[in-house]
Each structure stands twice: as structure tokens, then as C-alpha cells.
């Protein structure tokens, strides 16, 4: 089953797919999916992200293979839903997307061994975790100024039940920019698989429903420009659309140069 959350006609609604271009609200109304505002498909609690979790992406960025998962966290304000507009500041020269499998925790998890880990998963969604590389600094890297910007982490459109995803390590993913495929990968190439990540995190912190782990992105990131349409997609999970907006569009009257 696939479940989403949208704002429509003055309220927030749960929804399910209804054909290719429509959705069905919980009260039975069927509406065009482009007529709603998409929210992340669940209420996120702690948001984890994993850096350099695909060997090909790590070498693309000239990093050695991680011995321990490189984890960083995100705040609520960084999150947005399907079809969100994300700002590309005018002084940035390198902004890229990151297509990632997002794993949503469904039960309290503490010291969970890897072979039990998938029992604690509620479901999966697609993430696009934008980065602005100009703002990277080497302190608690990747730092928040680069990775925790407003509406720079998209989640959605659907939360797909774990029961419908027998193996999260067997999913093809790709990104299209303006219709052209720029990134291809496969979750079997993760350095730290979904069960390993749950084992690692739950060893020192208690995971709880709503926690979500963004599991990293493979090679193939390219610079984005204002006006670009970015579609990150994972087979069987969904296609997540994002729009890049330059300052001229984002801030009609700019507050700063």
C-alpha cells in the first residue's frame, strides 16, 4: 500500500494513488495530483542521513571508503514534499541533487541486530537531499549550511509499506534533470546496507516511529540551475519531483545581495 499526505482545499489529508495523475483523499474525494500541495508522507521525528554510502559516489568526491557510517542529522525546517521548490542562492556555483532511499522506522528499536532490523521498518519513500557544495566547511562536515537549508530535503510522494518491499537492497534508482537521466544506481551497492544502518544506530540510540534514515546517494551528481526540474525515482517506491528556483524568483525583493 502507498500512502501520502497533502494539503488541499484548506485542510491536510491522507491520500492514496488513484490512477496515474489523480489521488484519492481519505474522505473519498478524487483530485488531480497537481492540484494539491504535497507534504512529506509521514510525520518525521529524527531525520538521519548517511554520507558517502556508495563507493562510486565516494570516489566521485575523492573520499576513501568509510570504516564507520558517516551519519548526519537534519532539522524539521529542511524537509519538504513532492513538487517542492528549492532555492538556489545566486552566489552558489555547485548545487546538486541526491537521490536516496529513505527508510522509515515503525517500532521502537534499541540494540537491534542486523538480521532482525527490517522488522522495525514501517516503509520506504524517496528522498532528494540537495547539497550546496560552495557552503561546505570541514567542521562537522557535511555542515548544516550546506545540507540543512530550508526545503532542501524532499521526501515523497508515497510512503510504501515495508510489506510491499521485500528487499530494500534490491532497488534500482535514478535521477532525471529536465528529462535526461543523469544518475543511475542500485541499492545493492550501498557500503552500509539498511539492516546494518539500523543495527549501527540502534546500538547507541533508541529509534522510534517516524525516525527516517536517508541512506545515501550513488555516483552521478551534476550541477543544477534555476528552472531545472529534478526527478529522483526508485523502482517500486516512487518518483519525486523537485523544482530549482533562483533568487530572482524565490525572493521577489531580495533581502540581501
Amino acid at each position: 500500500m502507498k500512502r501520502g499526505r497533502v494539503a488541499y482545499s484548506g485542510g491536510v489529508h491522507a491520500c492514496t494513488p488513484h490512477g496515474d495523475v489523480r489521488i484519492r483523499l481519505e474522505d473519498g474525494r478524487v483530485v488531480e495530483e497537481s492540484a494539491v500541495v504535497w507534504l512529506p508522507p509521514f510525520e518525521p521525528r529524527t531525520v538521519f542521513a548517511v554520507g558517502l554510502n556508495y563507493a562510486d559516489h565516494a570516489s566521485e568526491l575523492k573520499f576513501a571508503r568509510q570504516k564507520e557510517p558517516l551519519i548526519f542529522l537534519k532539522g524539521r525546517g529542511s524537509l519538504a514534499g513532492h513538487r517542492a521548490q528549492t532555492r538556489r542562492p545566486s552566489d552558489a556555483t555547485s548545487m546538486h541533487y541526491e537521490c536516496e532511499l529513505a527508510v522509515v522506522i515503525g517500532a521502537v528499536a534499541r540494540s537491534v541486530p542486523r538480521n532482525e532490523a527490517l522488522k522495525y521498518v514501517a516503509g520506504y519513500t524517496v528522498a532528494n537531499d540537495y547539497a550546496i557544495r560552495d557552503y561546505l566547511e570541514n567542521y562537522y562536515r557535511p555542515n548544516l549550511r550546506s545540507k540543512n537549508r530550508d526545503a532542501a530535503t524532499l521526501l515523497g510522494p508515497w510512503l510504501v509499506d515495508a510489506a510491499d518491499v521485500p528487499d530494500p537492497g534490491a532497488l534500482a534508482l535514478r535521477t532525471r534533470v529536465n528529462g535526461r537521466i543523469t544518475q543511475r544506481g542500485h541499492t545493492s551497492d550501498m557500503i552500509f546496507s539498511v539492516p546494518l544502518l539500523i543495527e549501527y544506530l540502534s546500538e547507541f540510540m533508541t529509534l522510534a516511529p517516524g525516525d527516517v534514515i536517508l541512506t545515501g546517494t550513488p555516483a552521478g551528481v551534476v550541477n543544477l540551475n534555476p528552472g531545472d526540474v529534478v526527478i529522483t525515482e526508485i523502482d517500486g517506491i516512487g518518483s519525486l519531483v523537485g523544482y530549482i528556483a533562483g533568487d530572482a524568483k524565490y525572493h521577489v525583493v531580495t533581502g540581501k545581495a
Partner: protein
Amino acid sequence: MLSMYPDQYAPVPGTVYGAVLNFHADLAGLAGQLHQPPYLAPPQAPVLYIKPANTWIADGGTITIPAAAAGTAGVQVAATIGLVIGTPASRVTEEKALEHVSALRVVNDITLPHESVYRPAIRQRCRDGFCPIGPAIPLAGPATFLANCRMRTLINGVLQHEWSTKELVRGPGRLLADVSEFMTLWPGDVLLLGTPRAAPLARAGDRVRVEAAGLNALENELVLCAKEVA
């Protein structure tokens, strides 16, 4: 939501951010390293971390520490202040920043000691119970008094550490302004002013008390992780 400590949980209706390397003495202590690998250049923007929901614990709650930190190493503990956002703060100026702060929360920011600040210190900073956090104390007006006030950390009743907001690289207004340049802080979010790298060490069995700006105090006991005792 629950944590390991259902009776001791301290809810925060937002995200808790903290600043590291926000002390002049800390930057001076690293001066020889800031231009070397892996840092290569001194920090420009505020260096932030997040204290997630599993770390929030109320005054009086018991904090479990891993066996590896029970002996000589210990865990670092220190008082700090959390600015509670009252109205959305996006690209605010230093002069106007504190108008967005509606309350203060006293916090004991706990971490396993870690020398390197190159990678996010999640395993060190984000363990269950590592953020004792007091109730939000409403402010009558902008908290300008924060420009000069003291934080005290006591272990087993003995004052072990004290710091003043005058030691900060970015005081409350400057910090909030610089953070809001790249991300909006929302009502209920908390921005911690930071703790010094020289924060004192506490061990299993210790009672840690933090006092901040004369507002109120938090006291929490450290215990050894039961699983690791066995």
C-alpha cells in the same frame, strides 16, 4: 514520543540545534590546526549539530552512559542556554534577532569526549538522555541580559566549571542571525549557545547539576549501562 525513559522524557516541539567552536578559547586552542588537514581553513559559518528526540530528558532523569565512558574517560557535561524561538526567524539581523526568542531553556549538553570536529559527532553527542533540558521559561522582553551571564556546572555538589556568555565568539543575537541566514528557525525550535571543549568530565554514579543565567537548575544522575555491567 517515548524514548528509553518514558517517565523522564522532556518534549520539545521542534528541533534542538547547538553550536560548537563558539568559544574564543576553543578557536585559540585549535589555532595551529585550523589551517591544516582536515580543516584547511578556520570556520566561517556557525558550526552546528542537532540534539535529536532520544536525547531529551527531564530534570531528575537518569542518564545511562556506556561502559567505555565509565572509567577514566567519562562524559563531558556542561550548562548552556537554549534560545526558544517564538516567531519564525529567517534572515534576521543581529539587532532584531532576540525579538524572535520567546523563552529560554536550561540545558546540560552532554557528549562523549572527541578531539576531532571534522565529522558530525553523532555517536558521541546523540546518545539516549544526552540532552537534559528544562522547561521553557517565558521572557517578558528581548533577552539582552544574555550578553553577560554565567553558566555553572556542578558534579556531586562541587562547582567544576563556569563560563560566561562574554566568552562566546557569537553571542545570542549574532548566532541566531547567522544561523537564520541559511535556515529558518521555527516556533518551538531551540538554539543552544554552545559549550566549551574544556567542559568537565563526569562518570557513572555522579550527580550533575547545571545552572544557567540564574534561571533554574537541572540535576541528573549518571548510571552505567545495565547491559554492559552484565
